[in-house]
């Protein structure tokens, strides 16, 4: 009887200890460094060259993809519905696009693919950048940007 019990106890301890192997799977998030646009940047509506977008991504293993999301933040207090006048000729600007950057550990991105159409509603917007690595670790950052017809200090490249 005693032996039987000791055995059972031993088994449960073996289960307990055998689980304690090293965790070799990747749980480290990629790192996002958004250089342009900066926090609080004013971006010109209707600029055909597109937003000057500069981004550095890095990961301890392998990067997979990144996504840019721009959506309105008109009242500065969260996402309340803007009081829209039906006569308004502008439309809220929404942008949602992803790009794959497979097989790389570090990548510098520079493009002008985000174009703000001439009919976009001016105002406060949020810019969010998401980045994933091959294992599914995700990081993101949020920035406040302003869309304006007066246009910001967009440099030519």
């Amino acid at each position, binding site marked *: 009887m005693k032996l039987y019990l000791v055995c059972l106890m031993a088994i*449960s301890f073996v289960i307990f200890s055998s*689980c304690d192997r090293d*965790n070799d799977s990747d*749980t480290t998030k990629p790192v996002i460094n958004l250089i342009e646009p900066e926090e609080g940047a004013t971006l010109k509506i209707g600029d055909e060259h597109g937003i000057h977008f500069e981004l550095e991504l890095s990961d301890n293993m392998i990067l997979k993809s990144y996504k840019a999301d721009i959506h309105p933040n008109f009242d*500065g*207090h969260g996402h309340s*519905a803007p009081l829209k006048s039906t006569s308004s000729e502008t439309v809220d600007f929404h942008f949602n696009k992803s790009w794959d950057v497979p097989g790389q550990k570090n990548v510098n991105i520079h493009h002008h693919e985000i174009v703000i159409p001439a009919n976009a509603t001016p105002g406060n917007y949020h810019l969010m950048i998401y980045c994933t690595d091959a294992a599914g670790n*995700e990081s*993101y950052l949020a920035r406040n940007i302003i869309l304006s017809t007066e246009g910001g200090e967009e440099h030519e490249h």
Partner: protein
Amino acid sequence: MEKFVTVICTGYIRIMLISVFAIPVNAQVTDSVKIITLDEVVVSSSYKKTNNLNSAQHIDVVDETFLREYFTGNLTQTLEYIPGVHSMDIGSGFSKPMIRGMGFNRISVTENGIKQEGQQWGADHGLEMDAFGVGRVSIRKGPASLLYGSDAMGGTIEITQIPSPSENRFFGESALLGKSVNGTLGGSLMLGLKKNAWYMKLRFSEQYFSDYRVPTDTVVYLTQRLPIEGGRLKNTAGFERDLSWYSDYRKGPYYTSFAVSNAYQKVGFFTGAHGIPDASRLKNDENSRNIELPYSTVNHLKITSRQQYAWDKFFGYWDIGFQNNLREEWSRFHTHYGTQEPPAYNADKELEFSLNTFSSSVKMKTFRFERWEHTAGWDLQYQQNHIAGYSFLLPEYNRFTTGLLWLSTYRPNQKFSVSGGIRYDYGRLDISAFRDVYLENYLIEQGYDSNMIESYQWRSYSVDRKFGDFSGSLGIVWNPDNIHLVKVNIGRSFRLPGANELASNGVHHGTFRHEQGDASLDSEQGWQLDASYIYEHKGIHLTVTPFGSWFNNYIYLKPTGEWSILPHAGQIYRYTGAKVIFAGAEVEFDIDFFRCFNYRLAGEYVYNLNLDENIPLPFSPPASIRNTLTWKYKYVRAHTEWQNIASQNRVSRNEDVTPGANLWNIGATVNIPVGGIDVEITLSAQNLLDTKYYNHLSFYRKVEIPEPGRNFQLLIIVPFKSKIK
């Protein structure tokens, strides 16, 4: 032990057995009141020990004295003193329990034999129960599906009534609670009457608390650093009001009880952790007691009743219950999709869930006079969930479950017993679809194709699933003498997938993740082997409880690497089953010395691993140790405690590592006899050094909000009683 049995076998006791309710005739079920009656006869056998002799699983019993000395105004936070139990907090007021790393729907809380059914799947609200009214708690760590069906997979917290006094009396209690960290002011009044066959109790409690103090001046939310003004977390104030009635009647072999309770809670959400970060919303409003938007309210109504009758060789009882859990979240109307207009009525009601639960449980048990004892049972439960509000989180559903169980115990001698049981459950879950027309319009406006629109516009799919699951257990109890007690138990348990796990599809308003259900998910199933060793001799007490478990379909939110096209969402997280192991142990040691002193050490460790991904599971509790030194002399009891929480470096994907902490707590209780009344005053202090630390399991952890700072607490209890004829 022999004395104990001898007493049981006398005719006198047998009559007593029949006249009281809930008789511990089987090896698995903890039934309190009956055992207490035995305690009055056999002084040598403690309630805890008796319970543990009758179950092949280890049972921790928390009695009234303990509940008072470590009272926090919040039951879950008090139970944290039991190794293996943790609390998942939302702010300073409300918490959900977790046992051995399993929380939400993976554990069950029962009161008066009926399983409490709220919105257990959600992380941002607490357990709806009056902490002042809890008399006795038994905690079962490990699989208990055999007794309670689905959800009791990781353990149970059973709340039972304190037995009625033996003599006729009028009695009552008033309690006052004050806390400095969040300006809590609470009180409770109880009145009771015991008259012949009748016993009844009425209790009313209220608690108010303000925004709580945190030892920090900034928090980080969505990568933005936000200021905390005035050292208080804005809009975390709350309010609680509870009313309960309990009555029972016993005459000869018949016993009945009836209980009604209503618990209402309202608590503000920290403004900086809801919606988009904005420093302007965190401005000090010079009022720490107001509850502004966003906030949540919960009202839990519960009605339970038991009918019991004892025959010559067996007895039976039937528990029935009805519960309504009404949870609402209020937040200033907001939408991601421009075409949605605020509703005309209750424009700021974001979410509402109204869950009705009907429960029935019938048990037949043989008395424990022979070597064998048997129990048969039949459980039924029916649930309906209704929703409202301008936003969407969980669909409407109907859920029906029923289970049949059989348990037997064989006791060849007084030192050894084997017990085992088997149960089969049938479950059906019928989930309604929900189409978001505003989202659909938005996607059309954005120019997405019809396939894409079809896959995103359904926030919930129509799902109608049937499930059948076996659960069982087999265990031994070996009690060679009064000093040692050894138990080994193996159990199989299960949990039905929830409506969110099967049918959800969209951005979760609290986590900002696109969460997607999988309608093809099977039940979670697991095996657990656990053992316990108890040593009790000459003021030394040692309990060691190791365990290991294996799950073949543990459902968790897996990051898929697929981008969601929804605004404010990164990749899609999909509910996925994985092979998972858990292992760990709790140790409790205490020793009496120098007559007045007691030293207690309680430690715990849980390890888990998702075998499919070779990474830990999210929300794994860190290892921790409590060292408590207690001094007791006449009317005074004082304790000092050093709590060491290890850092949690084993995290799941997209979860942050949480550093450890060292905390000091002290407390003292004085009993002052005033005119025949024993007034009890407890003064305590938590986090004495005002250490800034984080709870890995807190809802606010991801926003880098630390736990409350230093707290002084005063609890005054004034009991009174007078004999009546």
